[in-house]
């Protein structure tokens, strides 16, 4: 199947006109598949997601080169909320639930995702969310700010699910959750993917669990993809360990300790 719901080609992102975070990153997400995007902190994973959902401008960032196409259409020409309404839902890092609103009001807010869509959403959407997350149904009158971390993550995913997305961007759903909860959440994510045919681009630090779920994985560093492949291949690769733990396995990179004072010498000579 060559049908890709998301194609990112050679994008570059700059914050505040000075800080370049992405340097020619490319990846694709096939329809109904889960793709994991891994990498150390600060590698640019969240930025990739924000670039995709067109939210960079909120943080004074901008796409300075490259192209992102969702469902065959260039995202640069679409508004952030327009993208959501076309089926691209972004579950942001840190869950970002509306803390002053109740669970159900959070879902109401999320129902804007289906605004103007012919297949509609309506209350059927709520039932779908509650079916996957019965816990949310129990707490639907509670203020979201008082939910536990796991419940908030459920709500965040539930809100995205309400938009009947074709593609979900998941930013570190495991962040700050205990291992048991992580497995619960990921089980539901897998179910959603399987039953709703939602494609997913999953950003994770927890490489094991991400690769267990994914069909394909990319590992990035310093704003570009360095290795990609199937989960089995990536898990077997020593480089993965290096990127995460800095275990100097690779041959070509010299140690930072051995960098010479060449610049300074040159200066004294001139």
């Amino acid at each position, binding site marked *: 199947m060559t049908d890709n719901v998301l194609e990112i080609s050679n994008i570059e992102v700059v914050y505040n006109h000075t800080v370049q975070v992405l340097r020619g990153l490319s990846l694709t997400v096939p329809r109904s598949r889960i793709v994991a995007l891994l990498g150390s902190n600060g590698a640019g994973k969240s930025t990739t997601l924000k670039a995709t*959902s067109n*939210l960079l401008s*909120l943080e*004074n960032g901008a796409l300075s080169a490259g192209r992102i196409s969702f469902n065959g259409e260039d995202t640069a020409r679409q*508004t*952030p*909320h327009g993208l*959501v*309404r076309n089926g691209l*839902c*972004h*579950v*942001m890092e840190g869950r*970002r*639930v*509306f*803390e*002053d*609103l109740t669970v159900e*009001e*959070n879902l*109401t*807010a*999320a*129902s*804007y*995702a*289906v*605004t103007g869509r012919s297949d509609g959403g309506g209350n059927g959407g709520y039932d779908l969310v509650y079916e996957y997350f019965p816990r949310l149904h129990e707490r639907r009158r509670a203020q979201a700010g008082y939910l536990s971390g796991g419940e908030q993550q459920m709500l965040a995913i539930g*809100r*995205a699910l309400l*938009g009947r997305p074709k593609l979900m961007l998941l930013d570190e759903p495991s962040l700050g959750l205990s291992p048991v909860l992580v497995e619960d959440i990921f089980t539901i994510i897998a179910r959603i993917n399987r039953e709703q045919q939602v494609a997913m681009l999953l950003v994770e630090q927890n490489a094991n669990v991400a690769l267990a779920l994914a069909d394909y994985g990319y590992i990035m560093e310093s704003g570009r993809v360095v290795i990609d492949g199937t989960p089995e291949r990536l898990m077997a690769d020593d480089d993965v360990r290096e990127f995460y733990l800095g275990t100097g396995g690779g041959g070509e990179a010299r140690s930072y300790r051995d960098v010479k004072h060449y610049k300074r010498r040159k200066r004294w000579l001139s």
Partner: protein
Amino acid sequence: MDWLFFFEITLAGLGTGGLYALTAIAFVLIYKATRVINLAIGEMLMVGAYLFFGAAVGWALPWWLAIILALLGGGALGMVLERGVIRPLLGENPISVFMVTIGLGSILIGMVELIWTANPRSLPNFFPTDPIFIGEAFLAPKTFWSFVVAAVVIAVFLLLFRFWRGGVALRATASDQGAAYSMGINVPAVYSLAWGLAGVIAAGAGILLGSIGGISSDMGLFGLTVLVVVIVGGLDSVLGALLAGLLIGWMESMAGVYLGGEYEHLVTFILLMVVLLFRPWGLFGTREIERL
């Protein structure tokens, strides 16, 4: 102590407090949605009152039609200000935006004086004029009816915030802009909506205020007391705006009668200083934790 008199003063104070609360809601609405401290709220209120004057007296329209036009005009003004001046500055230094609203206030005063001159005017009376008695206590009909209208309008807006889908979108945007975007909420439209609604409320408050005491181009000063109200209540708290509005209305009445009219605003501003020193986030506001 003359308790009946005290009670009457209290009622009168709450009457003014109702108008403070109403205007404060407009202020809070703008603050919550766009994080703008809008010092021009008093001038928006003044423009609303003058629009009513223009329609009811200038064009001699029936008062109810004039009110509708003035409310719509106030809403349009809010939207225009948001779209034309505020939105280009969102994300900039909040202090710049604050100063822009000071400038806007000045522009609005100038425009009103250009059209209607600076002469004070009185508005046609549309309230019933039969005196109101609560028990033995007298309440001026204007005060009573404006309080009733303010209360009804506030209640309607509270219900809208609570149950209307657009109200939920507003609160969602106020709580987390980025997340609102990612829910498919058209955030810029929400900004316009917030400023538009605030413009409507302010215009309504202006009509009420003007029908009590007449209108003039400097009635925007009312906005400064409203500023104190929202600081005391907490900039982002609707409940705070309501309670602080009533509290300050009552306090001013008390000060005016028992200390003298010159003390009315003094107590307000002393309260402001005390709140800023000891509880800057207000009685019901959210305390923001500063992060690096």
